[in-house]
């Protein structure tokens, strides 16, 4: 079937149907290649066999160390990257939709910084990882409540005021983090906090995936199920209400899920910038504006993107490169490019 200009406009660069199959195949390929790469190279054949051995009774042709590297070192980290990437992009796309503002993201709304404050408090109080997760979530919710509350107090709800409010809240949260770092024990707590603030996937192990995975998957599924409603919410509060939506309830559910996802991601990876902002824009270029396409596409390409970046982070040099540095180096110019293209391409 020939693609018309209308198709290009409404469905983006991806095909009208079966685009998710395409993206999931890409994701699988990226995961397998990433499993091969590292200081110790493992061949694709071995990787596939090691993975396959969990499903089929394969004859062991690999060395124990290869199995260990693939299954216990690289796989949890790669799955973590996929989980964190999906969580950030999905919550970014959701925030952009419900605040009808393509300039917001978990970091720009201050949610990531808020979650970081929550987990820093947890570290200072020496509570367990479950409580760190809960505190991160409370911090995130507090941040998003503040950020959305400020424009209401100003009685001005333009796209720019929301972004400014996010800058204010993010700045405040970062000061709180600074204060807590100052108070922290430099031997133990400080290192942990700095790690959190810089963002890294290096220490992700299976237990981490088990603790945040279910939260991310459940919240993500709820958001994906609501994705047509997010289209309507993006038309503005009054219109959504006139169209028959219980706007407060549906919007709160969406904010809650998006914030839970961001906070959960922060819990295992710290704050990783740019993804929540850039990926939904890229998804809209690839798939059109309809959130029924944008949300799942954001999820998939964000997982691919973060695995790709993290693979660079751990393989480019002998020492590990900080992830936040790389996402900034790639994300910022990429965002500039997208913005320029969006201007020219209407």
């Amino acid at each position, binding site marked *: 079937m020939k693609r018309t200009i209308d198709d290009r406009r*409404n469905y983006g660069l991806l095909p009208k149907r079966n685009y998710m199959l395409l993206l999931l195949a890409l994701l699988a390929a990226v995961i397998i290649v990433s499993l091969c790469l590292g200081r110790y190279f493992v061949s694709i054949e071995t990787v596939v066999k090691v993975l396959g051995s969990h499903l089929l009774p394969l004859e062991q042709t690999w060395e124990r160390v290869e199995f260990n590297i693939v299954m216990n070192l690289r796989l949890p980290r790669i799955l973590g990257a996929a989980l964190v990437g999906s969580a950030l992009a999905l919550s970014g796309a959701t925030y952009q939709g419900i605040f009808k503002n393509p300039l917001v993201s978990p970091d720009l709304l201050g949610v990531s910084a808020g979650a970081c404050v929550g987990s820093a408090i947890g570290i200072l109080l020496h509570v367990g990882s479950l409580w760190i997760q809960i505190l991160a979530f409370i911090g995130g919710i507090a941040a998003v409540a503040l950020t959305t509350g400020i424009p209401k107090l100003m009685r001005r709800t333009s796209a720019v005021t929301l972004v400014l409010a996010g800058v204010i809240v993010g700045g405040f949260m970062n000061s709180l983090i600074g204060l807590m770092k100052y108070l922290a024990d430099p031997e133990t707590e400080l290192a942990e906090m700095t790690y959190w603030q810089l963002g890294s996937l290096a220490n992700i192990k299976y237990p981490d995936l088990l603790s945040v995975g279910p939260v991310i998957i459940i919240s993500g599924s709820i958001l994906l199920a609501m994705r*047509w409603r997010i289209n309507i919410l993006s038309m503005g509060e009054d219109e959504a*209400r006139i*169209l028959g939506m219980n706007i407060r309830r549906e919007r709160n559910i969406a904010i809650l899920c998006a914030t839970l996802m961001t906070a959960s991601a922060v819990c295992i990876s710290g704050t990783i910038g740019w993804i929540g902002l850039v990926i939904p824009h890229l998804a809209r270029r690839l798939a059109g504006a309809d959130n029924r396409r944008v949300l799942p596409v954001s999820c998939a390409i964000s997982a691919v993107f973060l695995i790709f970046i993290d693979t660079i982070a751990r393989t480019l040099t002998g020492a590990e490169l900080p992830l936040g540095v790389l996402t900034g180096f790639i994300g910022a110019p990429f965002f500039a490019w997208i913005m320029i293209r969006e201007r020219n391409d209407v």
Partner: protein
Amino acid sequence: MKDVLLEVKNASFSYKGGRIIFHDVNLSLHKGEIFTILGPNGAGKSTLLNSIVRLLKLNEGEILLNGKTITSMRERDIAKMIAYVSQSSMSTFDYSVREYIVMGRAAHIGIFGKPGKEDYAIADAIIEKMNIQHLSQKLYMQISGGERQQACVARALVQQPEIIIFDEPTSALDYGNQLKTLALIRELSEHGYGVIMTTHNPDHVILLGGTAGILDRGGRMKSGPAEEMLDETYLSELYRANLKLVYVDDVKRKACLAMRF
């Protein structure tokens, strides 16, 4: 008397701590009736419409939809009764016109639902009826103001309401499109929809007939059959202008005309 769809009883509204916008407003709307609200800028026409769809809460009085008070209704049940065509419906994101129109199904679809084949069939049928197939795949924000209003009306019809409210549907349109919109509103009423619209042009009231309500600067509303409500001296006072109502033989109707300055 035909079935009463909507009743507004002794409605008053003022913003918190602000002046009273309107008070003691009464109106009723029947099946197939056109109710046109006239009034100067700032008289509270849009505010009244917004209270009818519960975007704003009345300070006093009540609004009944099919005899049920609106304050106890769920959003989706109100939306199944009333659709609203606002002055300017803007979108931040580039949805296609067809997607925009199918959003009218929101009240009929649950929170985790998506429009299915049937919903698209309803939308497509109305797109065809309104003869706007050529817009269907265009982007909503890239079509003209007149086309956007047609899309907005289509979305209202897709909602399958009994009442359609138009807030100054003609204000952003050229003369030809204004008349087209009035003809469309007349047609809707003939199909049984109750229509409430606001306008700045007394001529529109004459063209549409039906019932007219005039909201004056003091926030009071008088209403009655259109012919009876339009009175030369009253209109001149209302708009603080020198207006004449004259019968023009060529068009076989009265017209509201302004004196030369």
